[in-house]
């Protein structure tokens, strides 16, 4: 007797099909994402918040395998809590990014997730770090996820040094809207979080309130 020719495995939920972005300004950062989680052709969550807090003023944006990314964020959250108790003050953004990088690098073969880490600390102000594949690099802004391919040109053209907080929020929302329009795997609502010395401000923009462009 022969067995059937197909496997019954379900595609696993992933946020690889996603758009995430983070940008630093003088005094803080803005970090944003879309809200779609897909498993193959099906959208399993259309309102997921991919911006995960690692500490009061440090957030990360998740992309890649949903389970891997969430687990990494939870582990680093725990490690940062322990670290901040040990040093007796708020952790540095670079420390958070280093913890994420350590996990990404050590379990490179097993994990498939990319986290962008962004936040504010007293020593270096607003910072954005990328941790793709286990490297650690600080950048003025960063984009990730499948939807990011479509907005490389836009962010290269629009980014300038010395942008204000409001400019950065507009930049993030416009970039997310453009990517969500073109990437079949990004969509839903746009979440963004603004972090500065005064605190953390979480906002959500519904699909129909996103900026529109010439063909809409």
């Amino acid at each position: 007797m022969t067995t059937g020719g197909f496997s019954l495995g379900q595609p696993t939920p992933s946020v690889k099909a996603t758009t995430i972005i983070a940008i630093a300004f003088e005094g803080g950062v803005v970090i944003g994402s879309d809200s779609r989680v897909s498993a193959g052709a099906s959208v399993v969550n259309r309102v997921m918040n991919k911006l995960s807090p690692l500490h009061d003023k440090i957030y990360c944006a998740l992309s890649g395998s949903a389970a891997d990314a969430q687990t990494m964020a939870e582990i680093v959250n725990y490690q940062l809590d322990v670290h901040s108790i040990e040093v007796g003050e708020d952790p540095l953004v670079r420390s958070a990014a280093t913890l994420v990088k350590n996990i990404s690098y050590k379990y490179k073969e097993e994990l498939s997730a990319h986290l962008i880490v962004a936040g504010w600390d007293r020593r270096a102000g607003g910072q954005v770090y990328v941790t793709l594949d286990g490297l650690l690099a600080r950048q003025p802004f960063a984009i990730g996820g499948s939807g990011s391919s479509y907005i490389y040109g836009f962010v290269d053209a629009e980014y300038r040094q010395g942008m204000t907080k409001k400019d950065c929020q507009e930049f993030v929302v416009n970039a997310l809207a453009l990517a969500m329009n073109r990437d079949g795997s990004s969509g839903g609502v746009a979440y963004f979080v603004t972090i500065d010395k005064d605190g953390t401000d979480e906002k959500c923009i519904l699909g129909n309130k996103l900026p529109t462009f010439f063909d809409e």
Partner: protein
Amino acid sequence: MDRPPNPQNTGVSTGTTILAVKFNGGVIIGSDSRASIGGSYVSNKMINKLIQVHDKIFCCIAGSLADAQAVTKMAKFQLSFHSIQMEAPPLVKAAASVLKELCYNNREELQAGFITAGWDRKRGPQVYTVSMGGMLISQPFTIGGSGSTFIYGYADAKFKPDMSREECLQFTTNALTLAIGRDNVSGGVVHMVVITEDGVEHVVVPGDKLPKFHDE
């Protein structure tokens, strides 16, 4: 930053960036000038991908160069014969249709898509896309080639209908420059052809005169 889409997965596309944009009174069709083999060897730094199929009708190719040359050669012949029969210059739509017939009827063997742009007395400036399978549609502007994925966001954000000639030249140059900046198989100079009722003008912007963006 996440890895850009793997060219193997997105089908055979010439390492290239091409676009055509309608403005008030004409069209601009533009491309980069790099021909590469497999993305690791630049076989030609200054290839002209804008092919004149009739006095005021140009097309540029995405896909296999060999297929493209064979198809455009046939199309040129058919169009010149057609314009002799009609005793008038061919319509842009006629040129696009000729390409479409060839692409659709031979869709199993061919791997080439086309952008056709030009000016005719009946409908003025027009831009048509003939996709790889043989679909023909008219659009206000269109982008193609491997480098085009990076500028979808920029083009959506910055295109305005009824731009002036100068604005359109700036838009096209910026879009091609941004794509060249991110796509390793697009490069060289920016070739543009401006087609209006008055005639055809070829504009070349060498690499060192291209606009610079924030990280350069």
